[in-house]
């Protein structure tokens, strides 16, 4: 599932980041920031207007991502 569809607070793990188009700098930046296979992620807060942006916790870092950015990240929810 996409990170943008992950319910708030639900633990998940990054699967991959897809380029939205060829040489997508946003996807590359996401990978540089640590959105790589096997990294645990969580949605910790949701923006007040239009439920956008999302606050994503990855490792000890929190990143604000817009929904369109988060949609590039595919995650898997691991059965507890």
């Amino acid at each position, binding site marked *: 599932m996409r990170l943008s569809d992950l319910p708030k607070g639900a633990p998940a793990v990054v699967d991959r980041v897809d380029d*939205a188009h060829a040489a997508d*700098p*946003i996807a*590359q*930046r*996401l*990978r*540089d*920031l*640590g959105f*790589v*296979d096997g*990294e645990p992620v969580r949605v*910790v*807060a*949701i*923006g*007040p*207007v*239009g439920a*956008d*942006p999302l*606050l994503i*916790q990855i*490792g*000890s*870092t*929190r*990143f*604000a*991502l*817009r929904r*369109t*950015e988060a949609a590039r990240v595919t995650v898997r929810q691991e059965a507890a």
Partner: protein
Amino acid sequence: MSATALRIALVGNPNCGKTALFNLLTGGRQKVANYAGVTIERKEGRFTTPSGRVLQILDLPGTYSFDANSPDEQITRDVLEGNYPGEAAPDLIVCVADATNLRLHLRFVLEVKRLGRPVVLALNMMDAARRRGIVIDVPELQRRLGIPVVETVAVKRGGAAALVERVDGDMPVAAAASLDDGPSRANLHVQVRELLAATVSMPRQTAELDDALDRWALHPVFGLLILGVVMFLVFQAVYAAGKPMTDLIGDGFGWLGDHAAASLPVGPIKSLVVDGLFGGIGTVIGFLPEILVLFFFILLLEESGYLPRAAFLLDRLMMSVGLTGRSFIPLLSSFACAIPGIMGTRSIQDPRDRLATILVAPLMTCSARLPVYALLIGAFIPMHHVLGIFNLQGLVLFALYAAGILGAMAVGWVIKRIHRDKSEHALLMELPSYRMPKPRDIAIGLWERASIFLKRLTGVILALTIIMWAISTFPGPPAGATGPAIDYSIAGYMGHYLQYIFAPLGFNWQISLSLIPAFAARETAVAALATVYAVGGDSDTVGLAHALAANFSVASALSLMVWFAFAPQCMSTLAVIRRETHSWRNVAISFGYMFVVAYVASLLTYQIARLFA
């Protein structure tokens, strides 16, 4: 001890505490300049070690990676590799990493290491890491990385002792460069994971305090409420705390002027000193306290980590008017001055978002407008309380700030509608841990900003004050003239001429005249009015306020305030726009749209206010 200074470059991810470490090492002994041709700040300071070795420390812009689509990251890389023209490669790179966030920061350490230059890793914020129960096996980390690792606490006196000791001793040998371009990007993450697994134990991924604060600060309802209250209190404080100090400075300069007058013979020199210098400069310096109070709060919000939270809350709103949450920080700086604000837009990687932010930034009420507002509000708005707690003068000030913000939103929206590029633009913003702001960092930031303001003041304003005095004094009135002397001067003629354009806005010729120096620097409008009206009265703020109240209507005053809310910004701002966008077209667009908006808004204000007067 070497004859030449040892050149050290500080690098690290944003929010690693690099600048705090830089402040700790160099104290107030910093030199801030720009890299040639661009406006990225080049901060350099000196430090002498206990053994007498002189260190020349360069604070490079915060960087996540060297893949660099932004100019800051490009410069950081070029400087480190010694490829930046006119900048010798540093003898030593100190890579600063947040010990509480090594998962992110270690990746950049590995990238820096691959440059093959001498590197020391400074594990910063070790105090916070210990508090959170994070245990780092430093010797093991050092062994695995193959570079020296030291612990630092940038916010504590003596917190850089280990680092100083390290650079005071032998130079570490250069880490070997990976000539085969080493591991791929994904492999860097794999390496980081291995390093973390072997050397770091973390009981909890995040600080409990951050989680607790963010539950409120980022709450859809309370978060916005808190933001609104914070902003409102800041602007009330600017008026409440700054005003008494302003009055004190005004009185002080009045006293100085009187004393200077007593020792000078009557004539043009006396008039220049008393009316021109002490009157004009005293009036403008008088507003420094209010400006510093505003700077103080911006710094406080910046240092505490609240600003990115505000950007998070406002991103969607900003996006709907063609901006981004990231625009919030440059736009907030523009409340102090549009110049650092426009320079700060470099953190917006997207060219379209950046241009939109640059175009609307001057609509934010900069500190230079504050003297004008303060003068007019003091003269025309009665000092009474609304609903028992709010003071009406503060409310009018708030309304003027709000007018700028609403204007900016409208302009952003229009830009978005007429722009052809509809592609996607990224936010991707880190929300750092909350931090207790340190007095030293606030003080240094405040000093830096105040000195920029004062430099502009002493140069531009001093020159303009003298020019204003000259054109309003010469030529003197002909023998037997009945009107005030200034009516016959050069200034009088210019003011009368400009009045044809500005009469529909309710501006008399004195106001029209003051708009000329205001274009050079807005705060000089006050000095200009002081000079023009000094003819018959005191030259301090209170005296000027009385002179204004006697000479024009409330409708004119409101119209003038609205004019200043929207009018084309100062020359320096236009110059910065030219330099930042490399385009005169953008300068013309900026000047043109603001002139039209200001003219129309003032016209409406004046005509409507007259109906109610």
